Protein backbone atom coordinates (compact mmCIF):
# COMPACT_ATOMS: atom_id res chain seq x y z
CA UNK A 1 0.00 0.00 0.00
CA UNK A 2 1.36 3.40 -0.93
CA UNK A 3 0.22 6.00 1.61
CA UNK A 4 -0.64 9.39 0.14
CA UNK A 5 1.12 12.32 1.79
CA UNK A 6 -2.04 14.17 2.78
CA UNK A 7 -3.09 11.24 4.94
CA UNK A 8 -0.54 12.46 7.43
CA UNK A 9 -2.63 15.47 8.40
CA UNK A 10 -5.55 13.38 9.62
CA UNK A 11 -3.43 11.59 12.11
CA UNK A 12 -1.20 14.34 13.37
CA UNK A 13 -2.96 14.85 16.69
CA UNK A 14 -3.13 11.16 17.31
CA UNK A 15 0.48 10.78 16.49
CA UNK A 16 1.67 13.44 18.87
CA UNK A 17 0.16 11.62 21.81
CA UNK A 18 1.57 8.32 20.69
CA UNK A 19 5.12 9.53 20.36
CA UNK A 20 5.77 9.04 24.03
CA UNK A 21 5.18 5.33 23.67
CA UNK A 22 7.45 5.00 20.68
CA UNK A 23 10.40 6.61 22.32
CA UNK A 24 10.03 4.66 25.54
CA UNK A 25 13.00 2.50 24.66
CA UNK A 26 15.31 5.45 24.30
CA UNK A 27 14.74 6.80 27.79
CA UNK A 28 17.82 6.93 29.97
CA UNK A 29 20.11 6.89 26.95
CA UNK A 30 22.60 9.68 26.52
CA UNK A 31 22.79 10.07 22.78
CA UNK A 32 25.16 13.02 22.94
CA UNK A 33 28.12 10.71 23.37
CA UNK A 34 27.09 8.21 20.72
CA UNK A 35 29.30 8.08 17.64
CA UNK A 36 28.13 6.68 14.34
CA UNK A 37 30.81 4.49 12.79
CA UNK A 38 30.89 3.60 9.10
CA UNK A 39 32.13 0.16 8.10
CA UNK A 40 32.43 -0.65 4.39
CA UNK A 41 30.93 -4.10 3.84
CA UNK A 42 31.36 -4.92 0.15
CA UNK A 43 30.05 -3.70 -3.18
CA UNK A 44 27.82 -0.68 -2.66
CA UNK A 45 26.96 -1.54 0.91
CA UNK A 46 28.09 -0.08 4.25
CA UNK A 47 27.16 -0.73 7.86
CA UNK A 48 26.49 2.09 10.35
CA UNK A 49 27.07 1.25 13.99
CA UNK A 50 25.93 3.46 16.84
CA UNK A 51 23.17 3.01 19.41
CA UNK A 52 20.17 0.88 18.62
CA UNK A 53 20.02 -1.38 15.62
CA UNK A 54 22.67 -1.31 12.92
CA UNK A 55 21.82 0.63 9.77
CA UNK A 56 22.67 -0.79 6.35
CA UNK A 57 23.46 1.77 3.64
CA UNK A 58 23.51 1.09 -0.09
CA UNK A 59 24.71 4.06 -2.12
CA UNK A 60 25.28 4.90 -5.77
CA UNK A 61 24.33 7.21 -8.61
CA UNK A 62 20.58 6.84 -7.96
CA UNK A 63 20.83 7.85 -4.33
CA UNK A 64 20.93 6.23 -0.92
CA UNK A 65 19.00 3.18 0.28
CA UNK A 66 18.77 2.59 4.04
CA UNK A 67 17.75 -0.39 6.10
CA UNK A 68 16.49 0.80 9.51
CA UNK A 69 16.91 4.19 11.15
CA UNK A 70 18.12 3.81 14.77
CA UNK A 71 16.91 6.54 17.14
CA UNK A 72 15.59 10.01 16.24
CA UNK A 73 18.09 11.92 18.42
CA UNK A 74 20.86 10.41 16.31
CA UNK A 75 19.39 11.47 12.97
CA UNK A 76 21.80 14.37 12.37
CA UNK A 77 24.79 12.17 13.13
CA UNK A 78 23.41 9.42 10.90
CA UNK A 79 22.92 11.82 8.01
CA UNK A 80 26.45 13.17 8.54
CA UNK A 81 27.79 9.61 8.44
CA UNK A 82 25.84 8.88 5.26
CA UNK A 83 27.29 12.02 3.70
CA UNK A 84 30.78 10.60 4.13
CA UNK A 85 29.64 7.82 1.79
CA UNK A 86 27.43 9.72 -0.66
CA UNK A 87 26.08 13.22 -1.25
CA UNK A 88 23.09 11.80 -3.15
CA UNK A 89 19.59 11.99 -1.65
CA UNK A 90 18.14 9.30 0.58
CA UNK A 91 15.52 7.63 -1.61
CA UNK A 92 14.43 4.49 0.23
CA UNK A 93 14.23 3.27 3.81
CA UNK A 94 13.27 -0.28 4.78
CA UNK A 95 11.99 -1.01 8.28
CA UNK A 96 13.02 -4.57 9.20
CA UNK A 97 10.51 -4.58 12.08
CA UNK A 98 8.55 -2.19 14.25
CA UNK A 99 10.77 -1.83 17.34
CA UNK A 100 11.82 1.72 18.15
CA UNK A 101 15.56 1.01 18.14
CA UNK A 102 15.20 0.33 14.42
CA UNK A 103 12.44 2.78 13.43
CA UNK A 104 12.59 5.75 15.77
CA UNK A 105 14.65 7.69 13.26
CA UNK A 106 12.09 7.12 10.47
CA UNK A 107 10.54 10.57 10.52
CA UNK A 108 13.77 12.57 10.49
CA UNK A 109 15.66 10.39 8.04
CA UNK A 110 12.66 10.34 5.74
CA UNK A 111 12.59 14.14 5.87
CA UNK A 112 16.27 14.20 4.99
CA UNK A 113 15.54 12.44 1.71
CA UNK A 114 13.14 12.56 -1.22
CA UNK A 115 11.04 10.09 -3.18
CA UNK A 116 11.74 9.55 -6.86
CA UNK A 117 8.77 10.95 -8.78
CA UNK A 118 8.10 12.23 -12.26
CA UNK A 119 5.57 13.09 -14.95
CA UNK A 120 2.05 13.80 -13.81
CA UNK A 121 2.72 12.81 -10.24
CA UNK A 122 5.19 15.58 -9.57
CA UNK A 123 3.06 18.07 -11.47
CA UNK A 124 -0.16 17.33 -9.63
CA UNK A 125 0.91 16.59 -6.11
CA UNK A 126 3.65 18.93 -5.07
CA UNK A 127 4.63 17.15 -1.91
CA UNK A 128 4.78 13.72 -3.49
CA UNK A 129 8.55 13.88 -3.58
CA UNK A 130 8.88 15.08 -0.02
CA UNK A 131 10.78 12.64 2.05
CA UNK A 132 12.21 9.25 1.27
CA UNK A 133 9.97 6.28 0.63
CA UNK A 134 9.64 3.93 3.62
CA UNK A 135 9.13 0.27 2.72
CA UNK A 136 7.87 -2.20 5.30
CA UNK A 137 5.61 -5.17 5.80
CA UNK A 138 1.97 -4.17 6.21
CA UNK A 139 1.94 -5.31 9.85
CA UNK A 140 4.37 -2.53 10.74
CA UNK A 141 2.04 0.09 9.34
CA UNK A 142 -0.85 -1.55 11.16
CA UNK A 143 0.98 -1.26 14.46
CA UNK A 144 2.34 2.25 13.92
CA UNK A 145 -1.01 3.60 12.75
CA UNK A 146 -3.08 1.93 15.46
CA UNK A 147 -5.21 4.40 17.42
CA UNK A 148 -3.64 3.20 20.63
CA UNK A 149 -0.78 0.84 21.26
CA UNK A 150 2.86 0.58 22.20
CA UNK A 151 4.00 1.15 18.61
CA UNK A 152 1.68 3.99 17.64
CA UNK A 153 3.79 6.59 15.90
CA UNK A 154 3.48 9.98 14.19
CA UNK A 155 2.21 9.54 10.66
CA UNK A 156 5.39 11.04 9.28
CA UNK A 157 7.21 8.00 10.63
CA UNK A 158 4.87 5.48 9.02
CA UNK A 159 5.85 3.26 6.14
CA UNK A 160 4.72 4.79 2.85
CA UNK A 161 5.02 1.62 0.78
CA UNK A 162 3.94 -1.62 2.41
CA UNK A 163 3.74 -5.19 1.16
CA UNK A 164 1.64 -8.19 2.11
CA UNK A 165 3.29 -10.77 -0.09
CA UNK A 166 6.34 -12.96 0.52
CA UNK A 167 8.68 -10.36 -0.91
CA UNK A 168 9.05 -7.00 -2.58
CA UNK A 169 11.69 -6.12 -5.16
CA UNK A 170 13.39 -2.81 -5.89
CA UNK A 171 16.05 -2.12 -8.53
CA UNK A 172 18.29 0.71 -7.36
CA UNK A 173 21.88 1.78 -8.03
CA UNK A 174 22.20 -0.90 -10.69
CA UNK A 175 21.37 -3.56 -8.14
CA UNK A 176 18.42 -5.81 -7.50
CA UNK A 177 17.27 -5.51 -3.90
CA UNK A 178 14.87 -8.08 -2.50
CA UNK A 179 12.89 -7.34 0.66
CA UNK A 180 11.78 -10.70 2.08
CA UNK A 181 9.11 -11.22 4.73
CA UNK A 182 9.84 -13.74 7.48
CA UNK A 183 6.52 -14.64 9.13
CA UNK A 184 6.00 -14.87 12.90
CA UNK A 185 9.67 -14.76 13.89
CA UNK A 186 11.09 -11.81 15.86
CA UNK A 187 7.70 -10.13 15.33
CA UNK A 188 4.93 -10.59 12.77
CA UNK A 189 6.29 -7.84 10.52
CA UNK A 190 9.89 -8.90 9.93
CA UNK A 191 11.77 -8.28 6.71
CA UNK A 192 15.28 -9.14 5.68
CA UNK A 193 16.91 -7.29 2.79
CA UNK A 194 19.11 -8.95 0.17
CA UNK A 195 21.42 -6.77 -1.95
CA UNK A 196 21.99 -9.20 -4.78
CA UNK A 197 24.89 -7.62 -6.67
CA UNK A 198 26.76 -6.53 -3.55
CA UNK A 199 25.94 -9.95 -2.02
CA UNK A 200 24.94 -8.60 1.38
CA UNK A 201 22.00 -9.55 3.59
CA UNK A 202 20.65 -7.15 6.20
CA UNK A 203 18.79 -9.24 8.76
CA UNK A 204 17.26 -6.89 11.29
CA UNK A 205 16.88 -8.59 14.66
CA UNK A 206 16.42 -12.04 13.15
CA UNK A 207 20.13 -12.34 13.71
CA UNK A 208 22.35 -10.58 16.23
CA UNK A 209 25.70 -11.36 17.82
CA UNK A 210 24.98 -9.77 21.16
CA UNK A 211 21.98 -11.49 22.71
CA UNK A 212 19.61 -14.45 22.64
CA UNK A 213 16.86 -14.26 20.02
CA UNK A 214 14.30 -11.66 21.03
CA UNK A 215 10.99 -13.40 20.49
CA UNK A 216 8.34 -10.73 20.83
CA UNK A 217 5.29 -12.86 21.52
CA UNK A 218 3.08 -9.80 21.99
CA UNK A 219 3.89 -8.73 18.45
CA UNK A 220 3.41 -12.11 16.85
CA UNK A 221 6.89 -13.60 17.21
CA UNK A 222 7.62 -17.30 17.78
CA UNK A 223 10.70 -19.51 18.24
CA UNK A 224 9.72 -21.74 15.32
CA UNK A 225 9.37 -18.74 13.02
CA UNK A 226 12.64 -17.35 14.30
CA UNK A 227 14.50 -20.56 13.49
CA UNK A 228 12.81 -20.74 10.09
CA UNK A 229 14.07 -17.20 9.46
CA UNK A 230 17.63 -18.16 10.39
CA UNK A 231 17.37 -21.17 8.07
CA UNK A 232 16.20 -18.88 5.29
CA UNK A 233 19.26 -16.68 5.79
CA UNK A 234 21.56 -19.72 5.83
CA UNK A 235 20.01 -20.94 2.58
CA UNK A 236 20.62 -17.59 0.90
CA UNK A 237 24.32 -17.40 1.78
CA UNK A 238 27.00 -18.72 -0.56
CA UNK A 239 30.42 -18.69 1.11
CA UNK A 240 33.74 -18.54 -0.71
CA UNK A 241 35.05 -21.60 1.10
CA UNK A 242 33.95 -23.51 4.16
CA UNK A 243 31.82 -21.13 6.15
CA UNK A 244 33.56 -17.88 5.29
CA UNK A 245 33.51 -15.00 2.85
CA UNK A 246 31.08 -14.58 -0.03
CA UNK A 247 27.74 -13.31 1.22
CA UNK A 248 28.17 -10.81 4.05
CA UNK A 249 25.55 -10.44 6.77
CA UNK A 250 24.71 -7.21 8.59
CA UNK A 251 23.05 -8.24 11.87
CA UNK A 252 20.44 -6.25 13.74
CA UNK A 253 22.95 -5.70 16.53
CA UNK A 254 26.62 -6.53 16.81
CA UNK A 255 29.45 -7.06 14.40
CA UNK A 256 29.59 -7.75 10.68
CA UNK A 257 29.17 -11.46 9.96
CA UNK A 258 29.17 -14.21 7.35
CA UNK A 259 27.89 -17.76 7.16
CA UNK A 260 29.90 -19.19 10.05
CA UNK A 261 28.42 -16.72 12.50
CA UNK A 262 24.85 -17.33 11.37
CA UNK A 263 25.40 -21.09 11.66
CA UNK A 264 26.60 -20.71 15.25
CA UNK A 265 23.51 -18.65 16.07
CA UNK A 266 21.16 -21.09 14.35
CA UNK A 267 22.86 -23.98 16.18
CA UNK A 268 22.27 -22.24 19.50
CA UNK A 269 18.61 -21.45 18.72
CA UNK A 270 17.83 -24.98 17.53
CA UNK A 271 19.58 -26.74 20.41
CA UNK A 272 17.90 -24.59 23.08
CA UNK A 273 14.54 -24.99 21.31
CA UNK A 274 15.00 -28.77 21.29
CA UNK A 275 15.91 -28.86 24.97
CA UNK A 276 12.91 -26.80 26.02
CA UNK A 277 10.65 -28.73 23.65
CA UNK A 278 11.78 -31.93 25.38
CA UNK A 279 11.05 -30.41 28.78
CA UNK A 280 7.63 -29.19 27.67
CA UNK A 281 6.96 -32.70 26.38
CA UNK A 282 7.87 -34.12 29.79
CA UNK A 283 5.43 -31.74 31.46
CA UNK A 284 7.92 -29.46 33.21
CA UNK A 285 6.62 -26.11 34.42
CA UNK A 286 8.24 -22.87 33.36
CA UNK A 287 9.97 -22.58 36.71
CA UNK A 288 11.31 -26.11 36.38
CA UNK A 289 12.57 -25.36 32.90
CA UNK A 290 14.36 -22.24 34.11
CA UNK A 291 15.87 -24.18 37.01
CA UNK A 292 17.20 -26.81 34.57
CA UNK A 293 19.27 -24.08 32.87
CA UNK A 294 18.73 -25.10 29.26
CA UNK A 295 20.93 -22.24 28.06
CA UNK A 296 23.93 -22.80 30.32
CA UNK A 297 26.47 -23.44 27.54
CA UNK A 298 25.47 -20.34 25.61
CA UNK A 299 25.05 -17.92 28.52
CA UNK A 300 28.65 -16.62 28.32
CA UNK A 301 27.93 -15.51 24.76
CA UNK A 302 24.34 -14.32 24.78
CA UNK A 303 23.05 -14.42 28.36
CA UNK A 304 22.10 -11.52 30.59
CA UNK A 305 20.63 -11.10 34.04
CA UNK A 306 19.90 -7.41 33.57
CA UNK A 307 18.50 -5.15 30.89
CA UNK A 308 15.73 -5.47 28.38
CA UNK A 309 16.18 -9.08 27.29
CA UNK A 310 17.38 -11.35 30.08
CA UNK A 311 18.10 -15.05 29.75
CA UNK A 312 15.01 -15.75 31.84
CA UNK A 313 12.85 -13.75 29.42
CA UNK A 314 14.27 -15.66 26.50
CA UNK A 315 13.61 -19.03 28.12
CA UNK A 316 10.11 -17.89 29.03
CA UNK A 317 9.41 -16.77 25.48
CA UNK A 318 10.60 -20.07 24.02
CA UNK A 319 8.61 -22.03 26.58
CA UNK A 320 5.41 -20.09 25.91
CA UNK A 321 5.96 -20.19 22.19
CA UNK A 322 6.26 -23.97 22.24
CA UNK A 323 3.57 -24.47 24.87
CA UNK A 324 1.13 -22.44 22.82
CA UNK A 325 2.04 -24.57 19.83
CA UNK A 326 2.98 -21.65 17.64
CA UNK A 327 4.67 -23.00 14.56
Amino acid at each position, binding site marked *: MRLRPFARHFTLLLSMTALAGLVHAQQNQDFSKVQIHVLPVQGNVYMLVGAGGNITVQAGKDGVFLVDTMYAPLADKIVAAIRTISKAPIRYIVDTHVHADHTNGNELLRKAGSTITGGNVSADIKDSAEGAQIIAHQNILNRMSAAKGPDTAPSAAWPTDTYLTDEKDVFFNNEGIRVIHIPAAHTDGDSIVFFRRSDVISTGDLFTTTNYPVIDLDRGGSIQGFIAGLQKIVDMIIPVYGQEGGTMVVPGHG*RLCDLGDVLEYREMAVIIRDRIQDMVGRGLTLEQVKAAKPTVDYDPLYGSTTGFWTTDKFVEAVYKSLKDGKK
Partner: protein
Amino acid sequence: MKNLNWTAFAAVVLITTTGIPFARAQVNLAGTYAMTLDEDFPERLPGPEIGDYLGIPLNAAARAHAEAWDASLLTLPEYQCRVHPIDYVPSFFNIRLWEERDKDSQQLIAYHEHHEAWGTERTIWMDGRPHPPDYALHTSQGFSTGKWDGEILTVTTTHLKQGWIRRNGIPRSDRAIVYENYIKHGEHLTWTTVIHDPAYLTEPFIRTRDFVESPGLQMGAYPCESVVEVVMPKGKIPHHLPGANTFLAEFPARYGIPTEAAMGGAETMYPEYQQKLKTLPKPPPLKK
Protein backbone atom coordinates in the same frame (compact mmCIF):
# COMPACT_ATOMS: atom_id res chain seq x y z
CA MET B 1 79.76 13.24 -5.62
CA LYS B 2 80.56 16.87 -4.92
CA ASN B 3 77.53 17.35 -2.67
CA LEU B 4 77.82 14.11 -0.82
CA ASN B 5 77.35 14.49 2.92
CA TRP B 6 80.04 12.16 4.20
CA THR B 7 78.61 12.05 7.71
CA ALA B 8 75.25 10.88 6.41
CA PHE B 9 76.94 8.40 4.10
CA ALA B 10 78.89 6.94 7.00
CA ALA B 11 75.71 6.70 9.05
CA VAL B 12 73.93 4.82 6.27
CA VAL B 13 76.83 2.40 5.92
CA LEU B 14 76.88 1.86 9.68
CA ILE B 15 73.14 1.32 9.84
CA THR B 16 72.93 -1.06 6.92
CA THR B 17 75.86 -3.14 8.06
CA THR B 18 75.01 -3.37 11.74
CA GLY B 19 71.25 -2.79 11.65
CA ILE B 20 71.47 -1.07 15.03
CA PRO B 21 68.65 1.47 14.64
CA PHE B 22 66.24 -0.94 12.91
CA ALA B 23 63.82 -3.05 14.87
CA ARG B 24 64.74 -5.87 12.53
CA ALA B 25 64.17 -9.57 12.85
CA GLN B 26 67.01 -11.55 14.32
CA VAL B 27 65.89 -14.57 12.34
CA ASN B 28 64.10 -15.06 9.08
CA LEU B 29 61.13 -17.37 9.50
CA ALA B 30 60.41 -17.65 5.78
CA GLY B 31 60.42 -21.21 4.59
CA THR B 32 58.52 -24.45 4.28
CA TYR B 33 58.10 -26.57 7.39
CA ALA B 34 57.05 -30.17 7.85
CA MET B 35 54.99 -31.08 10.87
CA THR B 36 56.24 -33.48 13.48
CA LEU B 37 53.68 -35.62 15.23
CA ASP B 38 55.63 -36.61 18.32
CA GLU B 39 53.49 -34.47 20.59
CA ASP B 40 49.81 -35.26 21.28
CA PHE B 41 49.53 -37.69 18.39
CA PRO B 42 46.18 -39.21 19.46
CA GLU B 43 44.68 -35.73 19.67
CA ARG B 44 45.90 -34.74 16.26
CA LEU B 45 45.42 -37.29 13.52
CA PRO B 46 43.05 -39.85 15.05
CA GLY B 47 41.30 -37.07 16.98
CA PRO B 48 40.36 -36.74 20.64
CA GLU B 49 37.89 -39.09 22.26
CA ILE B 50 34.39 -38.06 23.22
CA GLY B 51 34.35 -36.96 26.85
CA ASP B 52 38.11 -36.39 27.14
CA TYR B 53 38.53 -32.95 28.68
CA LEU B 54 41.65 -33.78 30.71
CA GLY B 55 44.06 -30.91 31.12
CA ILE B 56 41.73 -28.31 29.67
CA PRO B 57 40.90 -25.35 31.95
CA LEU B 58 37.30 -25.28 30.76
CA ASN B 59 34.36 -23.91 32.73
CA ALA B 60 30.91 -25.42 33.31
CA ALA B 61 29.47 -23.75 30.21
CA ALA B 62 32.17 -25.21 27.97
CA ARG B 63 31.68 -28.64 29.54
CA ALA B 64 27.94 -28.48 28.92
CA HIS B 65 28.62 -27.48 25.32
CA ALA B 66 30.95 -30.43 24.84
CA GLU B 67 28.54 -32.88 26.44
CA ALA B 68 25.83 -31.82 24.01
CA TRP B 69 28.11 -32.09 20.98
CA ASP B 70 27.36 -34.83 18.49
CA ALA B 71 29.92 -35.73 15.82
CA SER B 72 27.05 -36.14 13.36
CA LEU B 73 27.07 -32.34 13.19
CA LEU B 74 29.97 -32.72 10.77
CA THR B 75 27.76 -34.57 8.29
CA LEU B 76 25.75 -31.42 7.61
CA PRO B 77 26.84 -30.01 4.25
CA GLU B 78 27.39 -26.53 5.66
CA TYR B 79 29.83 -27.95 8.24
CA GLN B 80 31.82 -30.32 6.02
CA CYS B 81 34.35 -27.81 4.69
CA ARG B 82 34.61 -25.82 7.90
CA VAL B 83 38.26 -24.86 8.35
CA HIS B 84 40.28 -25.15 11.53
CA PRO B 85 40.71 -21.89 13.48
CA ILE B 86 44.20 -20.43 13.82
CA ASP B 87 44.62 -21.77 17.36
CA TYR B 88 43.95 -25.35 16.15
CA VAL B 89 45.64 -25.14 12.74
CA PRO B 90 49.14 -25.92 14.11
CA SER B 91 48.00 -29.45 14.88
CA PHE B 92 47.85 -30.44 11.25
CA PHE B 93 50.17 -30.97 8.35
CA ASN B 94 52.77 -28.69 6.83
CA ILE B 95 53.06 -24.92 6.63
CA ARG B 96 54.79 -22.26 4.56
CA LEU B 97 55.84 -18.82 5.82
CA TRP B 98 56.91 -15.97 3.57
CA GLU B 99 57.73 -12.31 3.99
CA GLU B 100 56.07 -9.27 2.46
CA ARG B 101 58.45 -6.33 2.30
CA ASP B 102 58.05 -2.77 1.08
CA LYS B 103 59.90 -2.56 -2.23
CA ASP B 104 61.58 0.75 -1.52
CA SER B 105 62.33 0.70 2.19
CA GLN B 106 62.64 -3.08 2.53
CA GLN B 107 60.79 -2.80 5.82
CA LEU B 108 58.95 -5.96 6.82
CA ILE B 109 55.22 -5.39 6.31
CA ALA B 110 53.88 -8.83 7.08
CA TYR B 111 54.45 -12.54 7.36
CA HIS B 112 52.05 -14.66 5.39
CA GLU B 113 51.39 -18.25 6.32
CA HIS B 114 49.83 -21.05 4.30
CA HIS B 115 48.49 -24.17 5.97
CA GLU B 116 48.35 -27.36 3.97
CA ALA B 117 45.35 -28.50 5.98
CA TRP B 118 42.20 -26.95 4.53
CA GLY B 119 44.38 -24.54 2.55
CA THR B 120 43.88 -21.67 4.96
CA GLU B 121 46.12 -18.63 5.00
CA ARG B 122 46.77 -15.99 7.59
CA THR B 123 48.61 -12.68 7.65
CA ILE B 124 50.67 -11.46 10.58
CA TRP B 125 51.01 -7.70 10.20
CA MET B 126 54.43 -6.44 11.26
CA ASP B 127 53.98 -2.78 10.37
CA GLY B 128 52.41 -1.63 13.60
CA ARG B 129 48.88 -1.21 12.29
CA PRO B 130 46.08 -1.29 14.88
CA HIS B 131 43.54 -4.07 15.21
CA PRO B 132 40.14 -3.33 13.61
CA PRO B 133 37.15 -2.10 15.65
CA ASP B 134 35.11 -4.71 17.47
CA TYR B 135 32.26 -4.44 14.96
CA ALA B 136 34.46 -5.63 12.09
CA LEU B 137 34.23 -9.14 10.64
CA HIS B 138 35.63 -12.05 12.63
CA THR B 139 37.28 -14.91 10.76
CA SER B 140 38.65 -18.36 11.44
CA GLN B 141 42.22 -17.04 11.20
CA GLY B 142 41.50 -13.74 12.99
CA PHE B 143 43.43 -10.50 12.72
CA SER B 144 47.07 -10.84 13.76
CA THR B 145 49.85 -8.42 14.56
CA GLY B 146 53.38 -9.42 15.37
CA LYS B 147 56.56 -8.03 16.86
CA TRP B 148 59.97 -9.38 17.72
CA ASP B 149 60.90 -10.20 21.27
CA GLY B 150 64.56 -10.89 20.75
CA GLU B 151 64.61 -13.80 18.32
CA ILE B 152 61.01 -14.83 19.05
CA LEU B 153 58.16 -13.62 16.88
CA THR B 154 55.26 -12.85 19.20
CA VAL B 155 51.79 -12.62 17.68
CA THR B 156 48.49 -11.28 19.02
CA THR B 157 45.31 -12.41 17.31
CA THR B 158 41.83 -10.97 17.78
CA HIS B 159 38.61 -11.04 15.68
CA LEU B 160 38.30 -14.79 15.74
CA LYS B 161 35.16 -16.66 14.88
CA GLN B 162 33.90 -19.17 17.38
CA GLY B 163 36.11 -22.24 17.18
CA TRP B 164 37.16 -25.19 19.29
CA ILE B 165 39.81 -26.17 21.80
CA ARG B 166 39.40 -29.82 20.92
CA ARG B 167 37.53 -31.60 18.16
CA ASN B 168 35.14 -33.17 20.63
CA GLY B 169 32.87 -30.23 21.31
CA ILE B 170 34.98 -28.08 23.65
CA PRO B 171 34.28 -24.57 22.35
CA ARG B 172 36.49 -21.53 22.05
CA SER B 173 34.47 -18.32 21.83
CA ASP B 174 34.69 -15.42 19.40
CA ARG B 175 35.83 -13.25 22.29
CA ALA B 176 39.09 -15.10 22.77
CA ILE B 177 42.48 -13.52 22.24
CA VAL B 178 45.24 -15.82 21.08
CA TYR B 179 48.92 -15.11 21.75
CA GLU B 180 51.53 -17.04 19.80
CA ASN B 181 55.31 -17.42 19.81
CA TYR B 182 57.29 -18.61 16.81
CA ILE B 183 60.63 -19.85 18.07
CA LYS B 184 63.25 -20.89 15.52
CA HIS B 185 66.15 -23.00 16.77
CA GLY B 186 68.29 -24.30 13.98
CA GLU B 187 66.05 -26.01 11.48
CA HIS B 188 63.36 -26.53 14.09
CA LEU B 189 60.37 -24.26 14.63
CA THR B 190 58.26 -24.34 17.77
CA TRP B 191 54.86 -22.69 17.48
CA THR B 192 53.32 -21.93 20.86
CA THR B 193 49.67 -20.99 21.21
CA VAL B 194 48.19 -19.40 24.33
CA ILE B 195 44.40 -19.03 24.34
CA HIS B 196 42.67 -16.55 26.62
CA ASP B 197 38.93 -17.06 26.45
CA PRO B 198 36.80 -15.18 28.98
CA ALA B 199 33.70 -17.10 27.91
CA TYR B 200 34.81 -20.73 28.14
CA LEU B 201 38.18 -20.95 29.93
CA THR B 202 39.01 -20.17 33.55
CA GLU B 203 42.75 -19.95 32.82
CA PRO B 204 44.83 -19.55 29.66
CA PHE B 205 45.31 -22.76 27.70
CA ILE B 206 48.79 -23.36 26.28
CA ARG B 207 49.72 -25.72 23.46
CA THR B 208 52.92 -26.23 21.44
CA ARG B 209 53.54 -27.81 18.05
CA ASP B 210 56.90 -28.52 16.41
CA PHE B 211 57.97 -28.32 12.80
CA VAL B 212 61.15 -29.03 10.84
CA GLU B 213 62.31 -26.78 8.02
CA SER B 214 62.05 -28.71 4.75
CA PRO B 215 63.02 -26.60 1.73
CA GLY B 216 62.04 -29.23 -0.83
CA LEU B 217 58.64 -29.96 0.63
CA GLN B 218 55.70 -29.78 -1.79
CA MET B 219 52.26 -28.96 -0.50
CA GLY B 220 49.16 -30.10 -2.26
CA ALA B 221 45.93 -28.22 -2.79
CA TYR B 222 43.07 -28.83 -0.40
CA PRO B 223 39.84 -28.68 -2.37
CA CYS B 224 36.66 -29.36 -0.43
CA GLU B 225 33.15 -29.78 -1.76
CA SER B 226 30.09 -30.32 0.40
CA VAL B 227 27.67 -33.11 -0.36
CA VAL B 228 24.62 -34.54 1.39
CA GLU B 229 26.04 -37.52 3.27
CA VAL B 230 23.08 -38.23 5.51
CA VAL B 231 19.58 -37.15 4.58
CA MET B 232 18.10 -35.19 7.46
CA PRO B 233 15.18 -32.80 7.81
CA LYS B 234 16.23 -29.28 6.88
CA GLY B 235 17.40 -27.29 9.87
CA LYS B 236 18.04 -30.34 12.06
CA ILE B 237 21.13 -29.94 14.25
CA PRO B 238 22.47 -33.23 15.65
CA HIS B 239 23.14 -32.88 19.40
CA HIS B 240 22.63 -34.73 22.68
CA LEU B 241 20.03 -33.59 25.17
CA PRO B 242 21.35 -32.90 28.69
CA GLY B 243 22.14 -36.15 30.48
CA ALA B 244 21.48 -38.25 27.39
CA ASN B 245 24.99 -38.55 25.95
CA THR B 246 25.87 -42.17 26.72
CA PHE B 247 29.22 -41.89 24.89
CA LEU B 248 30.67 -39.76 27.68
CA ALA B 249 31.19 -42.81 29.89
CA GLU B 250 33.40 -44.61 27.38
CA PHE B 251 36.61 -42.59 27.68
CA PRO B 252 37.03 -42.83 31.49
CA ALA B 253 35.98 -46.46 31.48
CA ARG B 254 38.33 -47.46 28.66
CA TYR B 255 41.39 -45.97 30.36
CA GLY B 256 40.38 -46.38 33.98
CA ILE B 257 40.37 -42.63 34.57
CA PRO B 258 38.11 -41.21 37.27
CA THR B 259 35.10 -39.59 35.64
CA GLU B 260 35.68 -36.38 37.56
CA ALA B 261 39.18 -36.11 36.11
CA ALA B 262 37.98 -36.77 32.58
CA MET B 263 35.66 -33.79 32.93
CA GLY B 264 38.73 -31.54 33.03
CA GLY B 265 39.05 -28.09 34.56
CA ALA B 266 42.05 -25.97 35.44
CA GLU B 267 42.91 -28.20 38.38
CA THR B 268 43.64 -31.11 36.04
CA MET B 269 46.44 -29.18 34.31
CA TYR B 270 48.78 -29.16 37.27
CA PRO B 271 51.15 -31.84 38.65
CA GLU B 272 49.55 -31.60 42.10
CA TYR B 273 46.41 -33.13 40.65
CA GLN B 274 48.21 -36.47 40.51
CA GLN B 275 47.75 -36.74 44.27
CA LYS B 276 44.04 -36.04 44.11
CA LEU B 277 43.68 -38.44 41.20
CA LYS B 278 44.77 -41.31 43.43
CA THR B 279 41.88 -40.64 45.80
CA LEU B 280 39.13 -40.57 43.17
CA PRO B 281 37.03 -43.64 42.36
CA LYS B 282 37.63 -45.29 39.00
CA PRO B 283 34.68 -46.05 36.78
CA PRO B 284 33.65 -49.65 36.10
CA PRO B 285 35.18 -51.14 32.94
CA LEU B 286 33.22 -51.05 29.73
CA LYS B 287 30.86 -53.94 29.12
CA LYS B 288 31.98 -56.00 26.14
